[in-house]
């Protein structure tokens, strides 16, 4: 199980072997929506890393320090989504007031994160795997880093596809999916790194 693995292994597992986008299929709406050019994919990647680390640590604390001692595990879904939604709102206000440069860089991507399933999945998986706080911290850095890696790579490929000659019916969504499938195939190769 992941909670017995050392920190390096947890990082590699979440970053490459179980890549959140290409192997676990989470956060796909933004993956296809915001990968039209490299610049916006970098913005989205950074915004997701930033929000996931904070939000996952917070929901880890809420679950282990509040829900578990009170035996309220069945409220998990509702509390996590509310924690994340309110946290992203809060974060947006703080960044807008204190770090206007960063706010400009994140732009519209920050509010979009609330409904990004990658973040909620990170919170759920951290709890499901029964990770300790430090393990959860490493996990919640590696997971969105894998997201950023995949979305930036995909955007770079997509810029080339846009000018390539294609059969009419494959234009747009179909070719994006097939490209993602080939990338996913490449990522499956990392499975050989270790057994878990």
């Amino acid at each position: 199980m992941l909670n017995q693995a050392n920190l390096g292994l947890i990082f590699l597992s979440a970053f490459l072997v179980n890549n959140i986008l290409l192997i676990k299929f989470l956060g796909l709406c933004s993956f296809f929506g915001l990968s039209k050019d490299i610049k916006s994919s970098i913005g989205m990647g950074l915004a997701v890393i930033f929000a996931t680390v904070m939000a996952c640590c917070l929901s880890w604390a809420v679950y282990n320090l509040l829900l578990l001692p009170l035996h309220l595990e069945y409220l998990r879904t509702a509390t996590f989504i509310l924690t994340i939604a309110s946290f992203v709102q809060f974060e947006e206000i703080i960044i807008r007031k204190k770090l206007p440069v960063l706010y400009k860089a994140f732009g519209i991507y920050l509010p979009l994160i609330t409904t990004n399933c990658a973040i909620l999945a990170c919170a759920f998986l951290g709890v499901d795997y029964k990770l300790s706080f430090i393990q959860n911290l490493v996990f919640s850095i590696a997971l969105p880093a894998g997201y950023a890696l995949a979305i930036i790579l995909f955007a770079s490929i997509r810029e080339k596809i846009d000018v390539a000659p294609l059969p009419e019916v494959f234009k747009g969504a179909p070719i994006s999916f097939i490209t993602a499938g080939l990338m996913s195939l490449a990522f499956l190769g990392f499975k050989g790194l270790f057994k878990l």
Partner: protein
Amino acid sequence: MKIDFKNFVNALWKENAIFYLMLGLCPFLAVSSSVRDSIGMGIAVIFVLAGSNVTISLIRKFVPSHVRIPAFIVVIATFVTIVDYSLAALSPQIHRNLGVYLPLVVVNCIILGRAEAYASKNNVISSLLDGLGVGIGFALVIFVVSIVRELFGNGTILGHQIFGANFTPFLIMIMPPGAFIVIGFFIALKQGIERRGKKC
């Protein structure tokens, strides 16, 4: 009270959540490798969509508009929790296979999208129909795609051997890349059908 049947049909094919709107992809791609799991996921999505659409339509007049999104999310999360626990009791195996994708239905963009775009503006019966239409549209597509993936990836449908013992499974179909590639070809097929329809 006007009941909107046209919208129901529209949601099934022309504006299908998966093929046209590209919403709700996460559970769709992850679960469609087995027919049994996709039936479970389809039913879960239909139930959550219909339930949350009806509830949101009922409360739409009391909820102030600036807190409506959190209110909708709480309603959806309640239905997801109901499904999560009922499925764990009714069929522990499907519940285990669906894993983290079942609670993640709560952030499925289809559901919040329908709540915001339709149920918060329309009457109860129309909202119920809309929820059923979008849900059934999702369930049908996931069912068809899972048949293709399980048949070629495992040589079975619902666990029954179709091709006999000498068949070597086309393993990639049930692995993650297969999901992307199969759905890519399906969308190409839908685009092809629609283009042909326009030409005639």
